């Protein structure tokens, strides 16, 4: 026997919804309200933490600063979605002086060679090629040095400490340790320039797979240690 009428139209399975034009606003569930409260508390904790960090390090003065406190633009590939960057440290600007001076000298060399009598005997086309190659190599040298400094970053987030280091053209090193894993922090300032400009190395011993993380040639090592202490206190308070 064939079905003449679709049974669903005679006895529908679904309940008939009565639509009214005035829908009451959806009442938030208990979980949602708890989530909001927790978020407010988290924001307050982060704000307090930021105040403490600013109190120790002050605000970042310019984008090339070796210490970027609570940076808004800076980011890194391995960052978790909820992870918040608290401090980014690069080696102190003074560590760039040697390569900057070398670059200036290299730039001046072709003009100094004019005073060497043998050079004038070389055909003009070779001179031109030589000078062009010289300036290109000089640029490459300076550019590589700058890249080494700019991308040699030490990051402190609210969860971990990270060392990203590009040693040469094709070598990337990434080390990390959770804040709670930090066991011991020491700093070392040695030599005339480090003492004069107050920069040095912060050695962080951890219980993580990487037993030691070095923040090398960073400015104000004692302040970085204070920041890490604040974060460790915060971490231990959260653990309770």
């Amino acid at each position, binding site marked *: 026997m064939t079905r003449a009428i679709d049974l669903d139209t005679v006895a529908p399975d679904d309940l008939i919804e009565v639509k009214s034009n005035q829908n009451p606003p959806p009442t938030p569930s208990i979980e949602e309200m708890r989530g909001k409260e927790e978020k407010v508390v988290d924001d307050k904790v982060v704000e307090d933490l930021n105040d403490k960090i600013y109190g120790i390090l002050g605000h970042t003065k310019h*984008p090339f600063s070796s210490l970027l406190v609570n940076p808004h*633009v*800076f*980011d*890194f*590939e391995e960052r978790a979605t909820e992870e918040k960057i608290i401090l980014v440290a690069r080696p102190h600007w003074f560590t760039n002086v040697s390569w900057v001076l070398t670059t200036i000298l290299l730039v001046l060399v072709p003009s100094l060679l004019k005073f060497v009598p043998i050079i004038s005997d070389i055909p003009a*086309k*070779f001179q*031109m*090629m030589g000078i*062009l*190659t010289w300036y*290109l*190599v000089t*640029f*490459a040298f300076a*550019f*590589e040095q700058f*890249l080494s400094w*700019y*991308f040699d*970053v030490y990051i402190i987030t609210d969860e971990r400490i990270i060392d*990203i280091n*590009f040693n040469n*053209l*094709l070598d*990337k090193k990434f080390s990390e340790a959770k804040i709670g894993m930090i066991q011991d922090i020491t700093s070392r300032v040695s030599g005339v320039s480090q003492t004069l400009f107050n920069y040095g190395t912060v050695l962080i011993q951890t219980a993580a797979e990487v037993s030691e993380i070095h923040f090398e040639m960073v400015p104000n090592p004692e302040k970085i240690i204070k920041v890490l202490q604040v974060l460790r206190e915060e971490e231990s308070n959260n653990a309770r």
Partner: protein
Amino acid sequence: MLGDLNNYLALAEKVFGVLGAIIYLIFSLVVVKQVGTMTKNVKDKFNGILIVFSYLHLMAAILLVFLALTIL
């Protein structure tokens, strides 16, 4: 005899020049790749400028190869 020697020397100069320029071109390509990797890993304000510089360097290296082929 002396003319042949001069020709061989000129050819050797050209070959060395072009080879050197090609090696430099490969190096500049590595620099572009390196800057790309670095900027992908660490994002900061000046990444765009650094990428532009790496490409300018590559263009200069291409010019060097071209000049080595034509001038030398």
